[in-house]
């Protein structure tokens, strides 16, 4: 499993003040290939099975921001599949017995980690645009949509084919 990091640098004050995301958000990755580094139009090349990890870094450390959701185009409304704040808190409250719970919402924004494994896709490759929803506080549901970046899922490495994965089968067809 290869880890592919996507770092999202955000000028939070500019973005919250109405600046275009193109002028306040800069994405870079450590994946070979791809394009658009340093812009919101980053295209990250990944392969099935890679672990993709998004990290938001506020340029001004005292003007925080965090990712509320990563929504892939074609997957319905942005918040589909995203745990609501209250639901996630309930989960945390039940699971973490040693975590003091108070019945009030946890600062769920900063505790969210955005990472996942790249699944196999039809046609063995494709470009998957996504929208980042950036928030500045847990107290307010408002987010700013940052559209433009994408994942390009490329053909698997030869060893993946050798393991007889579903994707390899797809290739043969």
């Amino acid at each position, binding site marked *: 499993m290869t880890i592919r990091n996507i770092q999202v640098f955000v000028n939070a004050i500019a973005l919250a003040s109405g600046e275009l995301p193109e002028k306040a958000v800069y994405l870079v990755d450590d994946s070979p290939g791809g394009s658009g580094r340093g812009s919101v139009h980053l295209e990250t090349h990944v392969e099935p099975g890679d672990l993709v990890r998004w990290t938001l870094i506020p340029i001004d450390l005292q003007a925080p921001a965090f990712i509320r959701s990563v929504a892939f185009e074609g997957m319905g409304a942005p918040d589909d599949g995203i745990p609501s704040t209250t639901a996630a808190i309930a989960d*945390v409250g039940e699971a973490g017995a040693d975590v003091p719970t*108070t019945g009030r919402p946890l600062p*769920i924004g900063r505790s*969210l*980690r955005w*990472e*996942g494994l790249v699944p196999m896709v*039809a046609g063995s490759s494709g470009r998957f645009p996504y929208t980042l929803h950036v928030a500045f506080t847990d107290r307010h549901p408002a987010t700013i949509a940052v559209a433009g970046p994408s994942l390009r899922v490329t053909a698997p490495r030869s060893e993946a084919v050798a393991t007889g994965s579903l994707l390899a089968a797809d290739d043969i067809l």
Partner: protein
Amino acid sequence: MQYSLSVVIAAGRTIVDGSAEGHVWLVYPRDESAPDLERVEGGPDPALTFPCTGVHFADGSMADDVTLNWMVSSVTSIPQGRPVPVPLTPDQAELADRIRELVSSATSLQGQEDILAASFNPQHRPLGDTRLPDAPGTPRDIDGRPITVFQALTGAYLVPILADITGPAVDDGVIYPAQYGSPDALTEGWYWSATVDTAKPGIHEVILHVDIFRPAVRDGVLTFRPVRFQIPTWLDVRAVPAVNGFTGAGLGYLPLPWEAPAAAPAAATHEGEAHA
């Protein structure tokens, strides 16, 4: 994640009472998730307790650092973050420079007051919005004496200086405070910062050692004598587990559609742009 903790002190009342109790306010970003603390006699003061929430991974390691920065000020001190009030016009600037020269060349407090009184023109107000004795109701200092022009122009109190941070939170390794250089001359060129070990939940006492400057006239010269006060504050350290945003729990597959959406024409124009 960095937080600023503004510690606001009523410097005059603290000096008069000989204690900072009830004269200190902590200003920090509100955390809705912080539990309500009840005031217990001898226990932490909820108003002086800073909620400090970290995030940890499943293995207990820290997923999000917390850094604290203390900003100490006095209600009546020269405002921090902006320069000392300055004149608005070049004429006023020239006048103020001239007054400062004269004042600094005076050899006694009386001489300084005489120069200031002679040069004071209510229409010019050369040193900004500083209160002056001609205002309705004579402002008085902590000893009940009318504030002199000189005192008014220098600001009633200098900015309190955070001299040290101690307490159980430091002894127990919950915070690691350190002093850093700062270009802010009002804080004597230093500020205090600390990283927090959020793996140590609980309420930990942090004692702030603050020098408050007491203005006093000695041999006809206005001087400021530092008086050290210990101000108890608390950190309410908690750590919440990191949660995967996609699954609401642990690691899983990215929610990609089975087939890539048709490429939008607009997006295509950006491809290859800024290729590293």
